[in-house]
């Protein structure tokens, strides 16, 4: 299964992002690029709203979620279904203790909120990453972070609308992004050791 993984972060829900990826036009674009499944980590307290929205969609009757809650690192799968029109599958979980495993084992593309943790998780696993800024947050460095990582060429940044996400997916599928390097940082190691060892032993001058 070619899967998109969407993560809203653990702290606050991000309804606009989930609504956008459930949009028919967005799903059509995803299918155009070969994706046939979407796994979403939606945050706590959003399951009921999601179920209400999903009940309006035309889904198959007997879909059984192929991944267990255990595999997804949560207590229960919040919602899962397959669309009748195009067999596109959707799995939602509120929270996951195994985000990295899900990204590593299942995702070909990650769409993430602009938290530094989620951004680094995806980049370190060398996955394509679209970062979606939640402009409804007060006190907000997320836009700056997204712009910065985009300027460095690691990600594509976009807004939480289906149109912006469709543009994002188009850019990310047709362009090569910069690879995020995770080399050892000897200068910082040196600082740690110098600070720890200089005052007590006098050895490290």
């Amino acid at each position, binding site marked *: 299964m070619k899967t998109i993984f969407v993560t809203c972060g*653990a*702290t606050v829900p991000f309804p606009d992002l989930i609504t956008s990826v459930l949009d028919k036009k967005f799903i059509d674009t995803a299918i155009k690029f070969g994706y046939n499944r979407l796994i979403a980590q939606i945050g706590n307290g959003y399951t009921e709203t999601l179920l209400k929205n999903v009940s309006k969609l035309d889904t198959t009757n007997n879909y059984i979620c192929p991944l267990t809650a255990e595999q997804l690192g949560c207590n229960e799968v919040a919602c899962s279904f397959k669309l009748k029109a195009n067999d596109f599958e959707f799995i939602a979980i509120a929270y996951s203790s195994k985000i990295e495993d899900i990204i590593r084992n299942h995702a070909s593309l990650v769409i993430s909120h602009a*938290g*530094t*943790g989620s951004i*680094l998780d995806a980049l370190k696993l060398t996955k394509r990453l679209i970062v979606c800024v939640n402009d409804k947050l007060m006190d907000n*460095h*997320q836009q*700056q*972070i997204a712009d*910065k990582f985009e300027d460095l060429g690691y990600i594509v940044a976009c807004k939480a609308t289906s149109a912006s996400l469709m543009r994002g997916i188009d850019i990310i599928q047709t362009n090569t992004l910069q690879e995020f390097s*995770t080399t050892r*940082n*000897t*200068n*910082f*190691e*040196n*600082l*740690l*050791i110098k*600070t*720890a*060892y200089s*005052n*007590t*032993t006098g*050895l*490290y001058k």
Partner: protein
Amino acid sequence: MELSVVHWFASGILIISLILSRILFVLPFFRLNESHKQDEQNIPDETIRKKIESLTNNKPLNAFIFLGSGGHTGEMLRLLQNFNEILLKSGAILHIGYSDDQSYQKFQNLVKGKKDINVQYYHFVKAREVNAGLLQSLISITKTLITSLIHIITIKYKMINKPHLVLLNGPGTCCIIALWFKIIDILLFFTSSNIIYVESLARINTLSMTGKILYLFADQFVVQWEELIQVAPRAKYFGILV
């Protein structure tokens, strides 16, 4: 009579100036810039690593690390993971401060397979819960101040005369922790707490509130974006560390 007044006055001035000079010595603002910094950049990585290797083999590192919550904990755990060859090296003695159980769990997951590191845990009470009233806040802040002082004294006692560092990042409790460490440093004349503060990756152009306060106390102030050097000239920049 007059003579004793002069005596008192003189010794008063002497004591005050001693304390002041000690404070100036302990706090980082007036420290001379390390002049050998330039040469160091020419030492090859291999040599530095060998030196680190032999130092940490000879005497294990003692570190106090504070985990806050959510994103701060995430950054600190990634920092520990990225520099595990030093910070989680076998033989290391780690004092872990935490204020929520999730952070405690996550840290335990991180060190699950490592049997040779000695970990001691310290629970810190959160300084203020959201929506707390004024009186409640005052009580909880006092509680935090006292319990954290007891922890810091314990940790300081265990780390003294051993290679040690205090590693802090974003959470507000770090301000209280740094304050206690520095007050103890000022009172005890022969020690430094070696506080290293790493500013959050989310900060590109301005320091966080904790960052602004810790800029006054931390022995080494590290930022993860070069832009911040303009705001905090004493800061050091090594790229993204978390």
